[in-house]
């Protein structure tokens, strides 16, 4: 019998039809919608006189451009200051109401960043195909789902047919074995992976993250890693099912109970790569080699250990690399060879679908507790990923810790991850950010993003510059 990878199994289970040219019709179990990439899809549906194929598969929530400011947020949609954003959120509500699609509305318990909301409500479960008009859909792969981002035409296609026309990817396995050092988090692991394979390393592949480090990692941590598969060039990232996966799912709102849960679990347990399954690419990293990571440039692969230095222009192997580095340094306002820890930060953002789950909030609070944000730092935004995370954090008193330290405790949403609402960097400002993209202008026109873990971002807020969080926790 042929041995299959986890990805092969998920693919085979959802295959409706294979065309001669290698493209296939893949059945979609869960479709998550938000305000930005759905209006044109609904418009298309209406123009063609079509209806959604199935209703009990779609779930929607606004997240990208809603305000995270409590005063504005409390007024609901009507109070949204930015008119264009307001129309978009209203349009999502209208479309969901019209078609009867389940939506967690702007201030409803359950609302949150799509990729935080799906898993925590049990909307996404192991073995499913999950799509959303957002490239970080790979996050859901932490639950051994086949999950990836789609474009708006595909959103319309999935709404109308429950299928996606797509092509099978190749298999890639990234194994990290060993034990992570203190202060080294899932974010550091994924940044180190991207540093190693580059932002095109996973192109056309589905990545399975394997090895003892991921087995030890919490589901939240696995989500952080899978989330950034896209920054490693892959549309899909995933981790096989184990007891942690099953325990995570148990009892969530949309997860079955009783006998049906047991039935599901016995299937979920098969969602692992067979022992001798063949991967097209294998990459290995030693856990011990990973230090806390920080991006210094304008691409996630421009990343280094916090204790190291910005690369120097003379050590570049090619003219193209040299030019790329020069451009990045100019944009970032950094010197060739500068120590990473010497980079001062103007703002700090702790949030985004990469790092806004309860564990991330706890990790940041641990560093913030009893300390004060440096006077030179203009703003520290702590933005929980969902209403549920917010409620949990408040129940644990984390909000008090942040506020006492001089940080802003906000309402759930994407916020400064992509600066579609009022949370933005000014031109030239450096930001210690727990999000996933450091492209030019991503967090505001001219803004300079340094990606790192929540603990590292909290440490930067306290120190006023990028700093090794391990000195805060008594390591090093």
């Amino acid at each position, binding site marked *: 019998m042929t041995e299959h990878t986890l990805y092969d199994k998920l693919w085979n289970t959802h295959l409706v039809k294979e065309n001669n040219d290698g*493209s296939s019709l893949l059945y979609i179990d869960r479709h998550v919608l938000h305000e930005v*990439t759905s*209006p044109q899809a609904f418009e298309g549906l209406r123009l063609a006189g079509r209806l959604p194929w199935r209703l009990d598969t779609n779930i929607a929530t606004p997240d990208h451009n809603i305000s995270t400011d409590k005063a504005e947020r409390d007024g609901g949609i009507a109070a949204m200051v930015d008119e264009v954003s307001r129309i978009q959120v209203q349009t999502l509500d209208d479309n969901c109401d019209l078609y009867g699609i389940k939506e967690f509305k702007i201030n409803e318990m359950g609302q949150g960043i799509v990729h935080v909301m799906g898993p925590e409500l049990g909307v996404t479960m192991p073995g499913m195909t999950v799509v959303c008009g957002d490239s970080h859909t790979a996050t859901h792969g932490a639950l051994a789902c086949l999950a990836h981002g789609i474009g*708006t035409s595909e959103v319309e296609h999935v709404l109308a047919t429950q299928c996606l026309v797509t092509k099978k990817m190749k298999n890639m396995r990234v194994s990290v074995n060993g034990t992570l050092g203190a202060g080294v988090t899932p974010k550091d692991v994924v940044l180190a992976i991207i540093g190693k394979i580059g932002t095109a390393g996973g192109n056309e592949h589905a990545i399975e993250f394997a090895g003892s480090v991921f087995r030890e990692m919490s589901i939240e941590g696995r989500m952080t890693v899978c989330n950034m598969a896209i920054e490693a060039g892959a549309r899909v990232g995933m981790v096989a099912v184990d007891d942690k996966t099953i325990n995570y799912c148990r009892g969530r709102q949309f997860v079955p109970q009783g006998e049906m849960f047991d039935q599901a679990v016995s299937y979920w347990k098969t969602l692992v790569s067979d022992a001798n399954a063949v991967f097209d690419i294998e990459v290995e990293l030693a856990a011990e080699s990973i230090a806390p990571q920080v991006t210094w440039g304008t*691409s996630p692969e421009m990343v280094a250990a916090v204790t190291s230095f910005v690369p120097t222009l003379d050590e570049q192997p090619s003219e193209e690399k040299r030019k790329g580095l020069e451009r990045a340094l100019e944009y970032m306002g950094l010197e060739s060879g500068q120590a990473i820890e010497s980079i001062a930060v103007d703002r700090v953002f702790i949030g985004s679908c990469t790092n806004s789950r309860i564990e991330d909030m706890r990790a940041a609070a641990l560093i913030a507790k009893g300390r004060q944000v440096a006077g030179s730092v203009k703003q520290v935004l702590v933005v929980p990923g969902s209403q549920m995370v917010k409620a949990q954090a408040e129940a644990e008193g984390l909000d008090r810790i942040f506020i006492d330290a001089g940080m802003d405790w906000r309402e759930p949403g994407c916020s400064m991850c*992509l600066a579609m609402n009022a949370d933005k960097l000014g031109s030239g400002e450096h930001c210690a950010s727990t999000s996933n993209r450091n492209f*030019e202008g991503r967090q505001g026109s001219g803004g300079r993003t340094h990606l790192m873990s929540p603990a590292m971002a909290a440490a930067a807020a306290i120190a006023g510059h990028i700093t090794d969080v391990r000195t805060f926790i008594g390591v090093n």
Partner: protein
Amino acid sequence: MKAFTEHRGLVGPMDRANVDTDMIIPKQFLKSIKRSGFGPNLFDELRYLDEGQPGKDCSNRPVNHNFPLNQDRYKGASVLLARKNFGCGSSREHAPWALEDYGFNVVIAPSYADIFYNNCFKNGLLPVVLTEEQVDILFNELAAQEGYQLSIDLPSQTVTTDSGQIFSFELDEFRKECLLNGLDEIGLTLQDADRIKHYEAERAAQHPWVFGVIK
């Protein structure tokens, strides 16, 4: 969707690698709920000296004359010549909408980000993949010659220069058919509605927890 068979047009350059979708159409324009009208904001941050906002009239904004597509010789370009990994970053379909609305029918590059590549076909835009060497040749010729045009033929899958060089490119049969016939992909899939229903019924029997839970 309009059909695509062949195209001959003026070439415009985008001479840098890893052009991401933020660069193609900055995020503030994603707030629109329409599918059209993004052309004036294509490459907004590079094209203009001020910050673009949705609803802002672009006709009297300060223009960055150093940006090639703003130069007279490239006015009316309908073929975009680009470098590797074009369209990386966020999956926004506004990127091909903006390219198409601006007037591009074809993009030529050594490679594309997956999602962007897919999205092009759904919007009647043809993304052609040539080798890095071939793209180099085209960039050199383009720099050397004003009014440089290329002919792209979809049935024969070729790009032809006016000097008679012919470069072949690969693409999926399925995508090619859809583009050639201007076929709506949804209608095509719905021809298999019975098959999808059959799959669904089998799946519901096997994995009932996938169905009926979201209400």
